[in-house]
Each structure stands twice: as C-alpha cells, then as structure tokens.
C-alpha cells in the first residue's frame, strides 16, 4: 500500500548562510580538528612490547584443568562437545583408572581453528574441567599444529593457572577444587 500524501513530511536541508557558502571557514574548522588530533594523545599499543589489558572474562585458548592430585579433572561426560556450536571438541572416553569417577578422557582434542571461542563448553562443563584462558596470540605453522590434544591443553593449564591472570573461574563442580590449595 502506498503511503498517503498527508503522512509524508518532506524534510529540507537547512539553508546555508553566507559564511558556510564561502566554504573557507568550514575548511579552517576541519583543519583545526585534524591539527588538534595531530598533537593529541596517541592510542596505539606497541603490541609485542606492550601487552593489552584484557578483561577478566576474556575468552582465549582453552585449557583442561587439573585437580589437586594433578590428574585431569574431566570425566568425559561429552557435555562440552554436545554444547559446542562449532563441533570442534573430540573426546574418546575410557574407563577411569581412578576409583573416584567412572570415565576419563583417553583422547581430548580441540580444533582451535574451528573453535569460535563462544565459551559454551565452559558453561556446559559440570565439573569445571574446561575453561577459556586469556591467551590470545596463538600461532602455528600448520592446521595439524592447531589441533590441541589433551597434553597440550593440560600444559596450557600449567602455564596459566599460576600466573594470576586466569584463576579458576567457575565453582559449580562437584569434583575436587583443584589448583587452589588454600580453599
């Protein structure tokens, strides 16, 4: 249905005055703005030397947490790989060698190139075993290199847990409290 003529309001651009018509004052104004920025404070971060201040809930590379005995916390329940929208988590479960749980992950591989870093695996995990860290500058020379297996993910935990930037965040799990000896 076309719009009725009475519903239409024609808006005209405001009429220009003499000063605006001369065009030069406007240019001078523009130059003033750019000059101000020229001597203003710079916002550049010199990356490799200066590290960015990331927010505490930054979602970077994953890690697999360890419990206080140094074992992998994961119980291979497949909750994370089910929740994963990118389907980048591959788990193979096996009977646990330890008495306090039924299963443990024999293979736990995350394709870091396929992952969209949404953090839903972390939300889904019932025992705080998988978490996202603040590591963001991961690089590799091949696709295979970017498939992070269990050892690699555990080593990410060893790297980050003690640094202070990435404390264990979620506390809803039933299993051990891990890596926080004083709690």
């Amino acid at each position, binding site marked *: 249905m076309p719009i009725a003529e009475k519903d239409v309001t024609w808006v005209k651009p405001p009429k*220009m*005055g*003499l000063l605006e*018509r*001369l*065009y*030069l004052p406007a*240019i001078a104004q*523009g*130059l003033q*703005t*750019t*000059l101000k*920025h*020229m*001597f*203003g*404070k*710079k*916002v*550049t971060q*010199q990356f490799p030397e200066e590290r960015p201040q990331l927010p505490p809930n930054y979602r970077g590379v994953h890690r697999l947490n360890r419990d206080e005995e140094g074992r992998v916390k994961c119980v291979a329940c497949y909750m994370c790989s089910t929740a994963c929208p990118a389907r980048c988590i591959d788990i193979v479960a096996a009977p646990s060698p330890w008495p306090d749980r039924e299963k443990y992950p024999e293979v736990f591989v995350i394709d870091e190139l396929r992952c969209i870093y949404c953090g839903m695996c972390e939300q889904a995990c019932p025992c705080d075993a998988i978490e996202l860290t603040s590591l963001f500058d991961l690089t590799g020379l091949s696709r295979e290199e970017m498939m992070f297996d269990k050892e690699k993910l555990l080593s990410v935990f060893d790297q980050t847990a003690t640094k202070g930037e990435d404390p264990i965040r979620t506390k809803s799990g039933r299993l051990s409290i891990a890596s926080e000896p004083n709690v």
Partner: protein
Amino acid sequence: MHDFQFWPTLITIAVVFGILQGTAGFLVYVERKVCAYMQNRIGPNRVGPYGLLQVLADVLKFLFKEETLPKKADKVLFLLAPVLAFSTALLSFAVVPFGATEPAPLPPTPPAAMMQSATPLEKQQQAAIETEYQKKVQEYRSTYQFVIAPNIDIGILFIFGISSLAVYGVILGGWSSNNKYSLVGALRASAQIISYEIPLGLSILGVLLITGSLNLERIIWNQAEQGFFGWNVFIQPVAFLLFMTSAFAECNRLPFDLPESEQELIGGYHTEYNAFKLAFFLLAEYVHMITTSFLMVILFFGGWHFPIIAGPETGWFLKLIVFAGKVTFFILFYMLIRWTIPRFRFDQLMALAWKVLIPLALANLVMVMIVKEMTWPEWVLLPASLAAVVVAGAFALNAPPRPRVAPRGD
C-alpha cells in the same frame, strides 16, 4: 645572456634530481606519519629509528616485486605511460629556482648604438652605462644560480606546458591497461586536468601583470625588493587560493583525487600497474607535489625572501634554508588538507572549476588590470579581492535551487 656551462649544469641536474627523487620517496613516509598522527596513531616505526628506513624498505619492495604485464594491454603504451608521467614531472623542475637566485641585469635602454643624434656628453654617459651593464653581467655570470636553467624568460610558461603533458602519462596508462576501472580513471583525469588548467593559468596572470615578467627569478626578486608586504599573497590572496586549489587538482591530490579514488575505481589509472612501474607513478605524484609547492612559494610567498632573516643581501645558505622551510610548510599543508577534506563528487568537481574558480580568476584579472591602468597603489587589491570572494558567496546564497529530479515512473 647566461652562457651554457656544461659541467655546473650537469652537476646541478644530478644533485637536484637525486634530492628530488629522494625527497619524493621520503614524502611517502611523511605522508604515512602525518596521516597516522592525525588519526591518533603512531605510524611506521619498526624499520630503523622512528621508522626512517621505511623508505628503503618500500623501495626494495618495489624493486623485488615480479614485473607483470596484463595479457591484453597495449604493451608499448603500457610501458611508456609511467616513464612519461615521471619524466614530465622531473622536467618541469628545470626552471624552478630552489635557492638563492637573482635575475639577470636588464640591458640599458635605449642602447648607445641606436642613438643617432647624440651629443658627445650623452655618448660618454651612454658608454659609462654600457660598461656598468657589462660589469653587472660579468658579476651575474660569476655567481652560481640555484636553478638548473637560469634566466629562462618563459619560465612559468615552460612549467605549465610541461605539466600539461603529464596528463598523457595518466591517460595512456589508463587506456593501455585495457581495464574498465583504469579507463574510467583516465577519463576522469583528462576531464579534470583540462578543466583545472584554466583557473591555474588565469590565477597567475595577475601576478605576471604586476611583475611584468614570466621569469621566476624576477618574480622572486620583485617581491623581495618590496619587503614582507610585497609578497604577492598580500596583494592577491584570491589568486593564491585559486592557484592552490587548481594545483591540488592538477596533482590529483585529495580532495580532487577522483582519477585514482580507491573506493570506486580500485586504483584508477594505475590499477594494472605493479612493481617499479607503479613506483614511477607514485613518485611522479610526489614530484608534482614538490614542484607545485615550490611554485606557490615562488609566485606568492616571496621565494627565498623572509623579513629580517633573508633579504637580497644575505648569503645563499640562509636563502636555501628559508626556501626549503617554506616549501616544507606547503607540502605539509598538502598532507593536512588530504586527511581533512573528503573527496568531491565528480559534478561538484566540475562545478567548482567552471562556476567558481574560472569566474573568480577572471574577476581577479580584471581587478589587477584596472589597478595597473589607473596606477592605483597595489594594496587596493587586497580589500578588493576579499570583497570579490564575499560577493561570490552572496551570489551563491541567492542562487535558484536546483531542479529536483522527477521520480521515475511518473
């Protein structure tokens, strides 16, 4: 007048072209730095201290890129275009003074030999004037002039002639690439440069009328003799504005860079160029920028003259410094404008040239002619030209609105 001296000229050419090309390369770095500072960034700072070796890195990159030729390009013209663009840009610098210069002494009038019915006393006076003149000529010949071809009486005309050849580089490059984007860029360039050459030429006619010479050394001298307020910019501010605007358009610099607007035309006329052929085009653009900055300083800002610091009697070094300082200021101004004003639409570009710049230039020319004819003092031109601008603005204020284009299908 000035005998051609082979070795000094050759050395001057070598030094000037070397410095010119080095500066043009360096200006790429300056441009990036200025742009970065304006956008609150730091800019290139990784190669060498403060990123100063970036120039070297850029040149090496251009050198080591693979030379490619589009399959359907017109090979000869395709290779000729960058050479033409670059060589014309350099050639126009031949008559531009870049340091201390003085005009050649004028021959005494009337010459002694022409006087038929001269008394012995008069003949003696004439002979004295003649010897004085010869002495001045000797003195002039013995001093080094900071220009490749000194005492060219058609100076500015030569520059305009050569710089209008520069458009061939752009047109041939766009045409021979056999690429639609290149062709559109080239067509825009031809229309734009031809349009803007008119106000460019008209705007300096006033200056030439006041000086009475096309010789660039004499134009500088004329301003220097009259001191700070003798600079042409104080006598003809409108002419300076028109000249600067047209020069921006001639150099294809923003806000008039339609021939190479990357958003619409990828790279415009140099879309198909790479490696050192592209570097030639870019260098030509920067050399044009340097040349026009020199021209602005020479024509309107007194060349090497600066009150207190450098007058007609000071040494060459100070003059060189003053000249370089002024030119640097204008080059930086070019960059400042580039990152401040957005690009014009094509119809706006044409309207600016034909409806604003050319009428204003004509009005300015008529004003200068009236003042010269009536032998009024030259400072009258300052308020007169300002008034001309305001009147032009008032005209635009009362212009009838553009007819609204009727919607289709009615």
